[in-house]
Each structure stands twice: as structure tokens, then as C-alpha cells.
């Protein structure tokens, strides 16, 4: 396959950026999107040019590092991560636009790499459970109903990639935050911190400069792990419940 690429190039966070056009040749439809970018970078290096910086790690759809907006869609046209997107999703001769995640809370570091440490701070604010260490707990001491376990698992799938924020016209992190709130909120292990978790995570999310939710649903459409939109309503419910409880105590 032969492709025209238009890629966002930006030297660093303070520099101006612009789309640069490249031609790549000899792309196999079986290559992943990242392998296609590797091919481009090999050529750039041979030509003595600066290779395109992009985030990647596992390349198997589980780490959430590969943050690319491809033709305006976070992670491109398929519901998967950029690393699991294959070139067979494109046609020979296509022009493909590649841009970084866009949100005030995710500043560009270089080219396609953005700083997602805001997500880490949201998790630090309450996305954890406190457990006593030392002796291992008895496996059957805390039974979890099947439906709750399924709900928790569905939300534990979030890989923190940030596609939800990138897709949201308000740069909102509600879907990401709701994934962790839903995941831990239904489990008995998460019960002791149930109220403080949602209040503190939402407070941190707001402090990071993410936008609010207007229920456009772009986040859930972009999410490679299928975290559903109703999870946001469930988090709103948790937040209102925690506020009521905080008001009483």
C-alpha cells in the first residue's frame, strides 16, 4: 500500500505545531498502525530527519499508551486501540491525518505525545482500595454477587488511554473517572471509601481542568474497551449520594 500521511509535528510543549505531509510506500495491510508509523520513522531517520514521537508500550491493546487521533477519531476507525488497528482498515492511496489527543488537561509534549499525568492524579485522589497487608485474606470470606462482579469487571477494563477525553467536545474525563468509581463502588472491598472516593476523584478531575459532561456520548463511542455511557449517570448518582451523606455527618 502507498499512503499520504499528514502528521502533527511539534518540537515541544511551547513550540507552535503544524501538520506535515509524508508519503509512505510498501505498507502491508497486515501491519498495525504503529508499525506503519515505524516504517515512516525508519525512513525519516535514514534521511537524517527527526522521527515522529508517539506513545506506545504493549502494542497489544492493554496498556493504553498509544494515543493517536486518526482521521478525527480517537484510535481511528475501528473500536480498538491504535496499536490494534490494522492497515487493512484503509485503502491504497488514502490520505490519513494523525493528530495528538486534544484537551487542555493533556498538554502536548512533542508531536503526538501528550502528558496524561492528570489521569494518574485522579486515580491517586481516590481510585484505590485500602487493604491490610501481611496475611493473605481467606478467598471465600468476602462473597461478591455475580452481577456485581460482572459490573466491576466491565469497568475494570478501562486502560486509562484517554480516548474518551480526546473524543469529547468538552475535553471531559467523566467516562474515565466513572469507570473507576463504578469498578470499585460495587465491590465490598471498595465500600469503606465509597463516598470519599467519588467526591475526591471528581474534585481532582475538575481541578485538572477537564470540562463537564454534556452527554454527547462521543466518549463511549470512542472507548476501545466499551465503557458504556450510563456509567456516567451511575457516577452522578454516586456523587449525589455521597454529597447527601457528607451533609448529614
Amino acid at each position, binding site marked *: 500500500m502507498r499512503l499520504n500521511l*499528514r502528521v502533527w509535528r511539534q518540537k*515541544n*510543549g511551547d513550540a507552535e505545531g503544524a501538520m506535515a505531509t509524508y508519503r509512505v510506500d510498501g505498507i502491508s495491510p497486515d501491519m498495525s498502525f504503529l508499525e506503519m508509523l515505524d516504517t515512516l520513522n525508519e525512513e525519516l531517520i535514514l534521511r537524517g530527519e527527526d522521527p515522529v514521537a508517539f*506513545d506506545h*508500550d504493549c502494542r497489544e491493546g492493554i496498556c*493504553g*499508551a498509544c494515543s493517536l*487521533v486518526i482521521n*478525527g477519531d480517537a484510535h481511528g476507525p475501528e473500536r480498538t486501540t491504535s496499536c490494534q488497528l490494522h492497515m487493512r482498515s484503509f485503502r491504497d492511496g488514502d490520505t490519513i*491525518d494523525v*493528530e495528538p489527543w*486534544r484537551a*487542555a488537561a493533556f498538554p502536548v*509534549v*512533542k508531536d503526538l*505525545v501528550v*502528558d*496524561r*499525568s*492528570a*489521569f*494518574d*492524579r485522579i*486515580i491517586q*485522589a481516590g481510585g484505590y482500595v485500602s487493604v491490610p497487608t501481611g496475611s493473605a485474606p481467606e478467598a471465600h470470606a468476602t462473597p461478591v454477587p455475580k452481577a456485581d462482579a460482572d459490573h466491576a469487571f466491565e469497568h475494570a477494563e478501562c486502560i*486509562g488511554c484517554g480516548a474518551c477525553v480526546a473524543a*469529547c*467536545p*468538552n*475535553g*471531559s474525563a467523566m467516562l474515565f473517572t466513572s469507570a473507576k468509581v463504578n469498578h470499585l463502588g460495587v465491590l465490598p472491598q471498595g465500600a469503606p471509601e465509597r463516598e470519599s472516593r467519588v467526591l*475526591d476523584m*471528581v*474534585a*481532582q*478531575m*475538575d*481541578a*485538572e*481542568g*477537564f*470540562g*463537564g459532561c*454534556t*452527554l*454527547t*456520548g*462521543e466518549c463511549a463511542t470512542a472507548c476501545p474497551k466499551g465503557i458504556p*455511557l*450510563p456509567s456516567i*449517570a*451511575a457516577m*452522578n*448518582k*454516586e*456523587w*449525589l*449520594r455521597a*454529597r447527601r451523606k*457528607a451533609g448529614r455527618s
Partner: protein
Amino acid sequence: MALATKSGRNTARPPAAAPTRGFWASTIGKKTVMAASGLIMLAYLVAHVTGNLKVFFGPEEFNGYGHWLRVMGAPVLHHQWGLWIARIVLLTAVVAHAVSAYQLSRRDIKARPTAYVHRRKGASYATRTMRWGGVVLGLFIVWHVLDLTTGTVHAGGFEEGRPYQNVIDTFSTWYGNVIYIVAMLAVGLHVRHGFWSAAQTLGIGNARRERALTFLANALALVLTAGFIAVPVGVMTGVVS
């Protein structure tokens, strides 16, 4: 987990503001105010459209309804008290709704400062027009009160206590019809996304209720728009005269 990319001064960028658990400071708190005030206005609109349709039963019935609004709640409430309570609640709702909408919109625009070069089709029309539609509705509410409540900008001789004639005056001008019909289409779009959205904000929405809520949102939007527009159409076609 998300990557905190180590690169010079961008490392571990501090958060933009100190976190707070306050209700009004929170995006969810503001959104709750917007949803609650929106639902109050929505409930009012349902009552309002029902009352308006009485115009099809002639001047006595319509003017009688207008009079009842002033003695609503009697004998417990004094003359016009019921009406004034409703007006104060509505004014509070409009202000709370507009202030929360404005503050959240400002924040949302700031949170996404750079647009993508490759543009794609966005959310549904109703979703995308919430902000401008809301502004149109706000302007309409001002015009509407000045036209049919106070009579300040009314076409023809405004007569208090004779709403039937006043309504016919307004809908006998082309601009009265245009402003009104455009605003009622805006109401339909706003309610369509707004009602469903309010359910999600208040935590009532979930996957099981999804279809029922969407249906209710569409039904409310359709009934309100069609019901309100029936009045100017009635005047234009001479059914109401």
C-alpha cells in the same frame, strides 16, 4: 495506566486549581442545578401548553382560564399570590439554569482549546444546539413576557384581562409568527436532549431505562412543539379569530 511522560518542564504538570468537594464548585453540582431548574421549567411548559390549547374553545373559556390563574390557590391564597409564587419560582429557575449553563459552557470551551484539523461529524443536532438554542430561548422568554404579559412591545392595543384578543393581535403580524414558531422549534430540540440529559445528570438514567427515557424525551419535545405551534397556525388559518 496513563503515562506521565518525563520531558523537561512538562513533567508532572501541577493541577490547574486546588481540588474542592463543594457542591456549586463541582461540574456535577452545577449540572445538577441545571437539570433541576430545567425540569421545573419543563413541568411549567407542559401546564402552559395545556392552558394555551384552550384558545381553540373560544374567548370565554380562554379568558376565564387567564382569570383563574389570578385566583389560583384561593381561598387559601390572596388574589394573584399563586401567580406570583409561580413567577418567582420560574424566574429563579431561569436564572439558575442560565448561570449554570453559562459557567459550564465557559469551562467546557476552555477545556478543549485546540480543534482537530481533521473534522468529523459530531453529535446529534439537538445535542449540538443546546447552547445557542438556550440563548434563543432566553431571548424569546424576554420578548414573550414584554409582548403578552406586560404588553410593552405588543402589536395593537394591549388589553389586560383580554388575553384571547392579545394572542390574535400577536399572531396577526408576520414577525410575531416567525419569532414564535422558531422559538418553539428550539424548545423541541432543547427538551429532546435536555430531558434525557437531566435524567442522566440526576442519576435516574441507566441502560434498562434508556429506551423509555428516549421515548419520553421525544414525546415531550413533539407534544410541546406541536401544541405551542398549533396556536399561531390556528390564528393564521382563521380557526381562531
